[in-house]
């Protein structure tokens, strides 16, 4: 690794050099450079949230036209017109985000592309207001056309502010939540992260950034042409962020800078000196395409990924003394109602009945086992309780309240945590970060304190970190804290999942085959740990095939077969039950 320390600099220095060259040689292009860098950030936001949106050109157009109309027709200064245009973009993004963000991948791309075209058609159809297809009546009278230097300074400050915003967000719980949901939205939602809200936030923020870039674009060009906001523009903006990489924000600035400066350089240096190259008007495009292709092939993570290799992972150094296990959060007063009740819960997948009229109740502080042959519906039941999908019929009561229609993140916040049979860690994040994501809903900070980096922000982060480290230590994983989670062995990954779920301090912990991939000794240790959890007041529901574990630690066992409950009772009673022996345990 150390041999490649030059790599980041070998990538960054030429780009910065290129950009500086443009600044000095051709100050006229500086505005364009800065605007494209800002546009690159707008594409980064959506890409980072795993939204393949091509709406940026549309929002850029809205920002451009709205600010121009307000400034020229109403005669208001840009201090009013630009913020107003940005707010308009935010409002439009909120409205169209509602239906559009339900779509995924290519479908989202097509829909947002349609949105961009719609904006353009609206512009063409309203010539009185926008100048229509020619932009005629918005071609003069830009109040700040003459203030070239001021405008460039403002753009510089704006880019710096945005860079700070991204830097602060990326280090906060919000940035961590984005990283988590982009890797595994399902797991993120069971950590209490409202993935719909986060996606909406990303879409709106992206629209606002594109809007402000568009507004400055209008004022710096000094005339408007709807042709500037076509499909190509959307692709250009996306390519800045793709080149930069969707993982880290500064990559997009580099990407935007590179793809803007390169054609300018080619025009300046080549175009002027070598006459015959003038015949190749498309040359800059070809070279840009080539550069993009090379980066995608050789740096699949984008330009920013060159920093990833050398980046120091947070080490386990800060581990404190081994602390007591955390107690479950019992914010709601102890109630008379049982902790969890299932009433005639059924779930169908197409014509297949995965679960049929299953009912049982759980008292707080006990350990429940859920056993049955493979395919009996055990994982389906866990998925229903944790809110990944609702039951087809029946009720699930948590402390007496119906929760069967609640989404996963609200169930997580109510105090139900889970692990997954097929491990669902955030594989690219470190072990420690995974567990800190479990603390997400407990970290009490506001957007303001994140942006201003108030002392409280640091305090909350440090205490979440310490909590997470203490949990890792209790599970014997402290040494692995700084490792990429995906690198761990199967059994270790299972324990990280348990630590991550415990970080939520849940009242009910659902474990789906926690001992799969563990040997007998490790299984026994896990059993001791689960009993310790019980002592601390946790309630557990455990799906497991290791019968010695189940029989030893459970207070009560529910047995499923073909989606039906066939037995329930103490381990002793269940292990003598004729039906259970027949269907599951076998006789010998």
């Amino acid at each position, binding site marked *: 690794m150390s041999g490649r320390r030059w790599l980041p600099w070998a990538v960054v220095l030429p780009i910065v050099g290129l950009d500086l060259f443009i600044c000095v040689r051709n100050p006229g292009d500086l505005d364009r450079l800065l605007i494209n860098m800002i546009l690159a950030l707008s594409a980064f936001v959506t890409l980072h949230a795993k939204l393949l949106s091509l709406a940026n050109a549309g929002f850029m157009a809205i920002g451009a036209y709205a600010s121009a109309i307000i400034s020229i027709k109403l005669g208001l200064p840009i201090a009013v017109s630009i913020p107003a245009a940005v707010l308009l973009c935010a409002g439009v993004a909120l409205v169209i985000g509602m239906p559009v963000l339900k779509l995924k991948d290519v479908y989202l791309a097509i829909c947002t592309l349609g949105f961009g075209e719609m904006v353009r058609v609206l512009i063409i159809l309203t010539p009185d207001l926008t100048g229509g297809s020619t932009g005629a009546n918005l071609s003069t009278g830009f109040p700040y056309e003459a203030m070239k230097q001021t405008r460039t300074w403002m753009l510089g400050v704006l880019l710096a502010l945005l860079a700070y915003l991204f830097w602060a967000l990326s280090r906060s719980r919000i940035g961590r939540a984005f990283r988590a949901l982009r890797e595994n939205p399902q797991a993120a939602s069971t950590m209490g992260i409202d993935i719909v809200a986060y996606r909406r936030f990303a879409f709106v923020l992206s629209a606002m950034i594109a809007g402000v870039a568009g507004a400055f674009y209008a004022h710096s060009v000094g005339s408007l042409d709807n042709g500037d906001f076509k499909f190509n523009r959307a692709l250009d903006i996306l390519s800045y962020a793709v080149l930069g990489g969707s993982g880290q924000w500064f990559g997009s600035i580099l990407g935007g800078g590179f793809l803007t400066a390169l054609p300018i350089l080619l025009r300046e240096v080549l175009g002027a000196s070598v006459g015959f190259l003038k015949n190749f008007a498309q040359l800059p495009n070809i070279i840009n395409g080539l550069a993009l292709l090379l980066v995608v092939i050789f740096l699949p993570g984008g330009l920013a990924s060159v920093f990833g290799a050398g980046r120091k992972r947070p080490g386990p150094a800060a581990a404190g003394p081994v602390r007591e296990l955390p107690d479950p959060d019992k914010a709601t007063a102890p109630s008379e109602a049982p902790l969890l009740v299932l009433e005639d819960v059924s779930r169908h997948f197409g014509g*297949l009945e995965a679960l049929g009229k299953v009912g049982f109740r759980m008292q707080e502080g006990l350990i429940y086992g859920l056993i*049955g*042959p*493979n*395919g009996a519906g055990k994982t389906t039941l866990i998925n229903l309780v944790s809110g990944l999908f609702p039951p087809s019929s029946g009720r699930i009561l948590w402390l007496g309240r119906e929760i069967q229609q609640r989404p996963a993140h609200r169930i997580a916040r109510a105090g139900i945590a889970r692990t997954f*049979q*097929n491990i669902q860690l955030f594989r690219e994040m470190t072990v420690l970060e995974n567990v800190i994501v479990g603390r997400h809903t407990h970290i009490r900070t506001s957007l303001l304190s994140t942006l201003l980096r108030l002392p409280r922000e640091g305090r909350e982060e440090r205490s979440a970190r310490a909590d997470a480290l203490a949990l890792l230590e209790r599970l014997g994983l402290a040494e692995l804290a700084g*490792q*990429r989670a995906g*690198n*761990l*062995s*199967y*059994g*270790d990954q299972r324990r990280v999942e348990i630590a991550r779920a415990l970080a939520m301090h849940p009242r009910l912990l659902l474990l789906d*085959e926690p001992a*799969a*991939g*563990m*040997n*007998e*000794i*490790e299984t*026994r240790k896990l059993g001791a740990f689960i009993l310790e959890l019980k002592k601390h007041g946790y309630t557990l529901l455990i799906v497991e*095939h290791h*019968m010695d574990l189940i029989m030893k630690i459970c207070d009560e066992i529910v047995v499923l077969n073909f989606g039906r409950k066939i037995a329930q009772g103490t381990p002793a009673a269940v292990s003598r039950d004729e039906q259970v022996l027949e269907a*599951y*345990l*076998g006789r010998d």
Partner: protein
Amino acid sequence: MAALLEVRDLEVRYGSIEAVCGLSFTVQAGQVVSIIGANGAGKSSTLLALSGLVRPSGGSVVFQGEDITGLRADRIVRSGLVQVPEGRAILNPLTVDENLELGGWIRKDQRAVRASMEQVYALFPGLAGRRRQLAGSLSGGEQQMLAIGRALMAEPRLLLLDEPSMGLAPLLVKTIFDTIAAITRAGTTVLLVEQNARQALRISDQTIVLAHGRIFREGPSAELLADPVIIEAFLGKA
């Protein structure tokens, strides 16, 4: 007689983690060799390096006298070394039949492929009734059988099994180990990674015990089954 598989000084790293550090062992044709060890001891990594799914960072793998170190996974399968992956890796949207057909992808003689398919269904009667069913709708135990059956379709000389009993109900665990015994009786050599150390020791001829990426103990399984250290560390009191 030359060994079927000869592994020398095998190393596997993931970033800064050294998962396998200089592992050497041989597998003789016709044997069942099991690898046991704690979590993170390097068992799965060893299998992945043998089958080419992970590139070894050092050492050599010689299979049937041919150096296959660092070859692509598909080339290794063609040479007769086939892995059943941990977690089964069944092709969910395909039918049981199609999964098996793909297992025989590298074979030319379609009639022989059909015959192998019938043999697989004979070995796993539970799958025979579900030939047109989507693999994703099978239960965990049936998926594991399908994964083994799919690997057998390639007519392996050496079959690598990574935790075949994981996540299976007690009744099925017994079935799976019976099946492995049947496969070896039919002449296929098996290298088995298992957490269920007791069962692994019972059905294998030789056992390798890994700890921290190195060999901790190795020898005939019958001897290790009686070794107090192994009993203490992996089996517990019966």
